[in-house]
């Protein structure tokens, strides 16, 4: 006779409790610091109040900078995103399939790499583009990347891919018969676009705008690389600066982080509201075969727009870094003796780099392996078990989405400094941080796979008399395996590229690669940094190739 309470439930709530601790413990310490108005040297706090928040008013410039950069980046990202989405999903431009896959490449290149490359290209004095400009007789500089618009440009190129993904999904999921119905009634093409297409996609684009804006508010790497030289701070870089300076302004930084997190949370809440209320666009998950517009000769113009986008977001940055990494002093017109392989030799020989790279790989391996178990169980718990409270668990697990990783890491740092187990400034803390900040990524990826698999496949095994363990071994895990492997690789890649959390949490003996690249940029030469960034990119690229091969296999085994 079975029992009313199963071991399954106990295990489920156990995993949920771990996730809750991972997420809520650092948030608690972040808030504690934000409201701590006592002596900053004494913990736990001696007095609480709102002074830290009111002192934020002393930094109006930072708020203004943040708003301006985020707004500009959002507008640019939406423009690029909707233009590319329209071209690639609704017109008969040649090579659509290929371009659509290539659209993800800037994102995989990372905003940091984009910022480094565009810094080499667009600095007013030494930038390659300005060098060419002057060589052709121009005066001063053509572009200046160390400005708000330069920062926004790089953010839009390398962090705005999500706008394309969202808008393209929107356009793909729109039933073409909605437009056809309008045309059959006799409306012109323009009228159909104005009165049918646009109103249908508006809520979706508005949702994408809110989502992208929230992401831009929390963006860190680009503003750090391009803003720091001219002391142009946005909120994330300001928080970083306040923690790193001596004496650190922990309490104000905490208040700033808490405010940013509150704003982002509100934005994501608004995003969900917009998406839910504006759901008359049929986002059913059913993919329609969109009707392609025959654009005639215009298709070659559109093709060149696509090529131009890939040029500025992929080819030019990678080429620039490669070009710079092969020189002793990076210039746009180098002489023959300026070329060297020393940067790569130095990079591979430096102890710090080697240990950082191997630390990163080790951490990525650990994060992906532990993460896949933890997040797999959580995804199963949230989307399959129907245990009471699974909605709340989902909420907690998706929580880190609304918190910039830098702010989260700050909370973690503050939490673990006082923790009795000495893991502060070790790789263990980084592991905990990665497992926490990647919870939404991992759970969402695995959930996508779980939801694809018809629930009755598991239930049928149960009806055949199979126990929980037997079912998992013979049905659930074999069906999930390709998806789990893909999720493992995603977590691996995300860990190797992680910057925001790592830069605060790594210790002198637990360096990891991405923050080391930033350190190298500000501490050593840009040529050596270029070599480092390329080495990291190569590692990520290898992982992505494996990922693509694996997902191909998933596609081949797709379940109808």
């Amino acid at each position, binding site marked *: *006779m*079975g*029992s*009313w309470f*199963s071991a399954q439930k106990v295990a489920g709530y156990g995993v949920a409790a771990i996730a809750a601790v991972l997420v809520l413990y650092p948030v608690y310490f972040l808030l504690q610091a934000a409201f701590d108005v006592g002596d900053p040297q004494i913990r736990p706090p001696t007095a609480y109040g709102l002074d830290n928040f009111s002192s934020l008013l002393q930094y109006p410039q930072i708020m203004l900078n943040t708003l301006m950069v985020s707004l500009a980046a959002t507008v640019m990202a939406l423009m690029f995103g909707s233009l590319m989405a329209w071209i690639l999903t609704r017109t008969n431009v040649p090579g659509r399939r290929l371009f659509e896959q290539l659209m993800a490449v800037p994102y995989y290149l990372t905003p940091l790499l984009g910022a480094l490359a565009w810094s080499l290209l667009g600095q007013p004095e030494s930038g390659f583009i300005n060098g060419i400009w002057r060589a052709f007789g121009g005066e001063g500089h053509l572009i200046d990347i160390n400005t708000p618009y330069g920062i926004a440009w790089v953010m839009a190129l390398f962090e705005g891919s999500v706008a394309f993904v969202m808008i393209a999904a929107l356009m793909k999921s729109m039933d073409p018969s909605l437009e056809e119905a309008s045309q059959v009634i006799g409306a012109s093409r323009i009228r159909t676009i104005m009165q049918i297409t646009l109103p249908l996609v508006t809520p979706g684009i508005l949702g994408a705008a809110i989502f992208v804006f929230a992401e831009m508010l929390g963006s860190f790497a680009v503003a750090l690389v391009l803003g720091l030289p001219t002391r142009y701070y946005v909120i994330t870089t300001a928080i970083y600066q306040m923690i790193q300076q001596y004496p650190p302004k922990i309490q104000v930084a905490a208040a700033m982080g808490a405010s940013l997190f509150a704003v982002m949370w509100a934005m994501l809440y608004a995003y969900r509201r917009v998406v839910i209320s504006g759901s008359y666009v049929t986002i059913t998950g059913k993919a329609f075969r969109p009707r392609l517009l025959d654009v005639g000769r215009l298709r070659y113009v559109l093709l060149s727009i696509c090529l131009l986008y890939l040029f500025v977001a992929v080819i030019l940055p990678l080429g620039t870094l490669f070009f710079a990494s092969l020189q002793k002093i990076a210039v746009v017109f180098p002489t023959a003796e300026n070329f060297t392989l020393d940067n790569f030799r130095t990079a591979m020989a430096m102890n710090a780099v080697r240990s950082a790279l191997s630390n990163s790989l080790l951490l990525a391996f650990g994060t992906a392996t532990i993460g896949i178990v933890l997040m797999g169980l959580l995804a199963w718990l949230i989307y399959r078990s129907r245990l009471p409270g699974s909605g709340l668990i989902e909420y907690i697990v998706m929580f880190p989405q609304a918190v910039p990783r830098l702010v989260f890491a700050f909370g973690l740092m503050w939490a673990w400094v006082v923790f009795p187990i000495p893991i502060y400034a070790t790789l263990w803390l980084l592991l905990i941080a990665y497992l926490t900040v990647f919870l939404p990524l991992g759970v969402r990826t695995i959930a996508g796979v779980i939801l694809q698999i*018809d629930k*009755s*496949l598991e*239930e*049928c*095994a*149960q*009806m*055949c*008399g*199979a*126990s929980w363990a*037997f*079912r998992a071994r*013979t*049905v659930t895990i*074999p*069906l999930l395996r390709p998806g789990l492997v893909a999720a493992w690789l995603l977590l691996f890649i995300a860990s190797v590229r992680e910057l925001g959390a790592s830069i605060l949490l790594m210790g002198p003996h637990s360096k990891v690669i991405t923050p080391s690249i930033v350190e190298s940029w500000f501490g050593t030469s840009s040529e050596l940094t270029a070599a480092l960034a390329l080495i990291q990119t190569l590692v990520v690229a290898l992982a992505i190739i494996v990922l693509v091969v694996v997902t191909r296999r998933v596609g081949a*085994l797709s*379940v*109808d």
Partner: protein
Amino acid sequence: MPASPQGSPPSLSTPRPHIEVEGLELYYGSVPAVRGVNFNVMPGEQLTLLGPSGCGKTTTLRAVAGLEQPTAGEIRIDGLPVFSSARKINVRAEKRGLSMVFQSYAIWPHMTVFDNVAYGLQVRKVGGPEIKDKVDRALEMVQMREFGGRRASQLSGGQQQRVALARAFVFQPSVLLFDEPLSNLDAKLRADMRIELRDLQHRLGITSLYVTHDLEEALAMSDRIVVMRDGLVEQTGTPDEIYSLPHSEFVADFIGSANLIRGHHRPDLDCDGLTALETATGQLIYGMAYGRKAGPEMTVSVRTVHLRISQERPAGERNVWPVKIEKTVFQGDFSQIHLYWGDQRLVARCAAMEPIAAGRDVYMAVEPRRVVLLSPGNR
């Protein structure tokens, strides 16, 4: 007759029900899906839960299977409770010894047809040669023997359906549950599979609980039908009882097409065991109560096929009226005739005949035994 001092002993003539469902309730949060359902399935019987979507039939089936946890009630299999809210018993689905055919077939895509069917035997640790023997025989029964090595993605819908069936009965479960197993097939294949399923169920002699929203399927396949609505049982009976003697307006309307006629009772005109009903416009119709109580206000149900239309006035006094044709719709095997009966519109279904022009005056007749009194208060 001498009264038995111990009361009646456990009856030997009627066997104990195989499945007993008592006071079953199931709430999703505060939303009721099943609101107190009772029924029994006898050994070897095929019982069908029939109703429109959202009536709780699938939820009830899944509760019997153990895939949903009811809020209240008791479910017994072979007399043993597998769920009881009062006794806090909830046997897990895999321990209930049942088997199930799913609406989506649920053929595991990563296994061959053979492995799919063999699964239940492997779970039961049956030896290799015996597995092969039983799987082959099961596949033989569903005419899929030569497909053993194929993968699910290489099968058509009908073939997947057969594999799902073989997989469900290969390990000789005591009960088979069917969750709308034919709803994903096209109409022709569905009609064939219906007969095949019925034959197979008879050959195996297995107790079956079947869920469908398809009336024809239920009438053709079931020993008994439980009609459900809004999480409650509306009527239980043999297909003939359900069809001929609907209990309520809902059943009359849902089970095939019926004309519902409302009016008040004229006890003064009752005669020969017939009940007289007078409509608001003074039309008089005689029907039979079938043991149901006639209130002052009452409703009778007349199947569209039981209304007879003729050009000449038929013999007999009762239940013969002149009517006016509104229109005739040709539907192949039969014609649907819309007509005015006084100022009430009725529908009659006649075997295909010469179309009668709209506006013609003809006669309509119905046998009083076909005019069924519905239970009061059951709308």
